[in-house]
């Protein structure tokens, strides 16, 4: 059971990371294309909107589960390292529970927002019709996957009886 959960979480966060990396590449090309076009008095229509609402949101948020699983989050180790192993495990469990609360709250609310945004086909003010509702789904997917990664880390730490 745990193995299947861990595999699902790992596969999911790697797929999300790959999509985010792709988004970084597209972002670099998109912005550069606009700069080059401007040099010839042309423009790539909708660069600002697409980059801000799609490439950025995807590139920034989708790797979150991978970051959580691999402990790449920025945290302060100085004090905790001085404590004995059992205390470190206790603090790690607390940190995971707080993480579950935080990402759980974000996942829940952003899912509601994404649903409402989809129902009303949300757009933004622009020179043209620009839908942003699809990109809103990046948030619940990212935060949900992060909850799963945190939960797997928590189970793993308890099984191994050590802080990860």
């Amino acid at each position, binding site marked *: 059971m745990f193995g299947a959960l861990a595999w699902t979480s790992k596969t999911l966060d790697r797929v999300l990371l790959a999509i985010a990396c792709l988004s970084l590449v597209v972002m*670099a090309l998109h912005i550069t294309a606009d700069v080059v076009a401007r040099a010839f008095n042309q423009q790539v229509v909708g660069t600002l909107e697409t980059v801000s609402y799609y490439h950025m949101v995807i590139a920034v948020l989708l790797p*979150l589960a991978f970051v959580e699983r691999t402990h790449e989050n920025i945290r*302060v180790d100085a004090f*905790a390292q001085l404590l004995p192993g059992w205390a470190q495990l206790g603090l790690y469990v607390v940190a995971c529970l707080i993480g579950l609360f*935080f990402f759980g709250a974000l996942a829940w609310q952003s899912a509601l927002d994404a649903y409402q945004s989809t129902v009303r086909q949300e757009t933004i003010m622009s020179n043209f019709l620009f839908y942003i509702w699809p990109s809103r789904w990046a948030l619940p997917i990212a935060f949900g996957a992060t909850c799963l990664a945190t939960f797997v880390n928590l189970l793993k730490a308890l099984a191994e009886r050590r802080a990860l």
Partner: protein
Amino acid sequence: MSNFEIGVGGIAVALFLVAIRVPIGIALGSVSIVGIGIMTSPRVAWGMISATPFDFVGQWELTAAPMFLLMGYICTTTNLTQGLFHAIRLFLWRLPGGLAVSSVGACAFFAAASGSSVATAAALSRIAVPEMLRRGYDKGLATGTIAASGTLGSLIPPSVLLVLYGVYAQVSVGQLFMAGFIPGVLSALIYAAMIMVRVKVNPALAGADDIRPSWSDRLAALRDVWPLPVLIISVLGGIFTGAFSPTEAGAVGTVVACLIAAARGSLTWSAFREALTKAAVSTTGIFIILIGSVFFTRFLALSRVPAEFANLILSVSDQSWWILLAVAVIYIVLGMFIDSIGLLLLTLPLLLPLVDGAGLDLVWFGIIVIKLLEIGLVTPPIGLNVYVIKGALGGQVSLTDVFKGVSWFVAMDVITLILIILVPALALYLPSVMMR
């Protein structure tokens, strides 16, 4: 409990959570959600969660952060920096402590192609430090030089820290980039001068460099280092001439770096994939703190703690030296334990109202803050750059060696900082020229 008391309690709980290893962004965010829920109503807290992450992340100006990170990682994974240190050394070998001075120069150059201090220190530690140790340089001097010079990465543009500060403080990132240039170069010159004086006084600190390069050797070496100057000129030149904005520069720089690497045949799939993964992971690590920090700003604003804090500091004196002293104490103490990006985003919600209230120039203040954060990167017990170098060299040096070596550079940083404070034009001259 009054809102103010909840605010103070919230800061204490957030610091406690950070100390017990809760990731900084999660600590700030969860305290803010609970705090706002208690101060107002759970509905307001849900409303903040609803509005903030999507709107904040989807900001055009912030695109510069992932793009500059990607550009820097592409430079390192495709070895665009290779040869830089060697080439500079061929020109500076005659100077006392020539290898160490060359390392400072190489770091300053690399800083102009990378947005991060840690990346700069990491890139040079594997190349320059072993060479210095082989030549009999003092361990402290060899490692301290790279740890400290790495910090130029955040001051010399482009700089991810300056992008984050600019977006947060609503100051032009272009002006901040211009403002960081002279203080960055000045820091490098002061480091180099200190190395030369120390080696002159005590020649045992530096080993002899036995190369005797001819001009043809030098020109041959320059042929190897063209990628970095080309990249720097295309990025900074584009910004300064107005061909593209600082926000767009990261993307253009990434594409140019890829083209250069492809031309040299070093853009392999594995190097490209490594750069992308590192950039994505670092970006997300930073942005989760940003989101937590935006929550924390809202929470603190509701509690009126920043306003009261500003009143408290200003009631003693509204002289800028006093405010900067208070800020410096906060950064130096917290900087011992918290890494620079985390610390910047943790403290700005509290400090910006104070600085704004005192009427200090936010561009100038930004450069001072970055310099203070950089000092935190090399001071014990955390000093991230020191650990980066220790990590790269393994058992060859001890942490004490590095920290001892770096202390000389910290003293120079204090001098640079005092100069920037006494002569604001060092930071503000270039932005004022740009404004014209």
